[in-house]
């Protein structure tokens, strides 16, 4: 991947992220977040994680952000006007963020793992095809032999092969979430809001 593109995407992600943090209007924030997530999705793609990238756009930039916007509209939440931003939280937020970023950078720079780059670690698709062949997954093996990364297939295989149980749990979790939404936000019959 060309470095320029990476920097562009990173800038998109972080720039819109900054806008989320600083924007006064919630709608601005939500839209910026969507944009930031889109940039992030592109970064995922650059990491050969196509499926995740798509999910990121679908679920986050799509569903979740729409949900946010929806709520903002529903509740008619205004910008934080009238209220002065107090300095202390802002300063402390910046301080914490800077320190954390510095720490991450320090750790990254101190370790050898981080210096791996995409060129040095190419995907050995044919090797993988050989290994996976035993698992009798004809379409995946075929794709791999052809030099294309069947990302969705592979992740689906992993999910359903190894993480079937976890999927069930997440399903349960979503159900609980649903129930929670009903319990917590349903209007009472005949009552005030």
């Amino acid at each position, binding site marked *: 991947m060309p470095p320029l593109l990476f920097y562009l995407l990173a800038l998109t992600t972080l720039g819109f992220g900054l806008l989320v943090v600083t924007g006064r209007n919630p709608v601005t924030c939500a839209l910026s977040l969507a944009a930031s997530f889109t940039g992030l999705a592109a970064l995922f793609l650059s990491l050969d994680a196509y499926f995740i990238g798509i999910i990121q756009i679908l679920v986050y930039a799509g569903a979740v952000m729409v949900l946010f916007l929806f709520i903002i509209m529903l509740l008619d939440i205004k910008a934080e006007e009238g209220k002065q931003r107090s300095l202390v939280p802002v300063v402390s937020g910046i301080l914490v963020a800077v320190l954390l970023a510095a720490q991450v950078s320090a750790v990254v720079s101190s370790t*050898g*793992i981080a210096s791996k780059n995409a060129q040095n670690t190419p995907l050995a698709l044919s090797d993988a095809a050989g290994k996976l062949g035993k698992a009798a997954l004809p379409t995946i093996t075929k794709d791999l032999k052809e030099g294309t990364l069947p990302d969705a297939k592979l992740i689906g295989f992993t999910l359903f092969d190894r993480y079937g149980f976890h999927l069930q749990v*997440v399903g*349960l979790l979503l*159900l*609980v979430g649903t*129930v929670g939404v009903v319990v917590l936000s349903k209007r009472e019959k005949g009552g005030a809001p």
Partner: protein
Amino acid sequence: MSVFTLEAGLALLGLVLLMIEAFQPDVSRRTLGLTAIAGAALALMLLPFCGTTLPAFMQPWHQLDTLALFYKGFALVTTLLVLWLTLECAPYLTRFTLEGKLAEMFSLPLIVCAGMMWMASARDLVTVFVTLELVTVSFYVLVAFARKSAFSLEAGVKYLILGALSTGVLVFGIAWIYGATGAMSFDGIAKALANPATSKATALFGAALLLCGLGFKVAAAPFHMWVPDVYQGAPTPVTVFLSVGSKAAGFVVLTRALDAFLVPGSIIASEVKALLLVTGSLTVLLGSLPAMFQTSVKRLLAYSSISHAGYLILALACRDSARFDLSSGGIVAFYLATYLPMTVLGFFGLGLMRVNGLGEDLKDFTGLAKRNPLLALLVTISFASLAGLPLTAGFLGKLFVFLGLADHGYWGALSCAVIAAAAGFYYYFKTILAMYTTEGTDVPALSFSVVTKTVAGVLALSILILGVYPKPLQKVLMPAPAAVAIK
């Protein structure tokens, strides 16, 4: 029958109850509650008869060792008690819930229980994350359940924001641990950490973040600040569930994670241990010292819960004692087993007072001994045990922690623990004293049902029996090593 079936069955029962609530609104809450209780009780009874073998497909992410089985039983007992307390507190709680309904308060705990039982068996970080989130998200709902109460809602908001923040930290930590070790399973992590070639800084960074995330769940300082607010605001049965069930689950995960981090030859062992000591010392102090000035007993119990978490963390730091073979995981389990009845009993008292129209403040406790001598005695036993008075269960747990710390020569941490215990005497006894004070109170009698009496009585008795005859529990927790040690 496999334990897994049991857990799935519990979750299923939870779903069924949800369905019943949704489609058969005229089923009484008592029926629902009793069904849930019956289900949990059945599961508890069946637990000892479940085999400990696992099907092959589960083995990569599931394990059934003594610790896991113990925690499963622990979760079931907690759930049972929580359900009963919910039923008992129903008249009060329904005033604050949606349309006076309570069904989800019976079904969600079953699902949470299943989640905690799975968590106890978790063998890799993915399982940990998924089950932990199942439990946490359910708790978001449960904490804010009494949504018409401003307190409950506020607690819900705080728990939500801080919980989500901690989830973020946890995932970030998982990412870095994974990055450092290339593994998601605890075994793999342990193996990689034992390898000197693994990048130490990365591993430390990941471990630190992971421990921060888990520290939030178990209320370790400095990630404990949500506890008093949330415990105080949440409906009392939920508070019990949080302080006993959720915390225990957090500790079982922490134990597993530390098993990996502190594997023999681990490159990060000493740092992690030091972190545990520092955190543990800080936690006991930050739990105990502010508690001294509390006037709300519920909030006081929340602080006490923080303090107890601190002892547990210190226990986790005392690993690999040469002579004291209740190894730290065992000490933690033992401590939690003793912590369960005393905390639950204390909250039982609070819940019963609420139902009887009293508040949760110290002044509401005044003259309790006259209102209901039995309840006063039971709460006394609970608080005495929480304070760590000898001949109650609470003392032994603390004693083991002290012994472990002394055995390792962690004098600084030991002195913090001792100071915290001393402060503990003050705030627990303050409440006990209030109960027996009679000045200036008109004392309407206070009554509660026979079953609750029995349940509370059993809890109190178990506190006392565990306090003087802990051998059976020790045998349960440490069957093999103990046998070796006895010769």
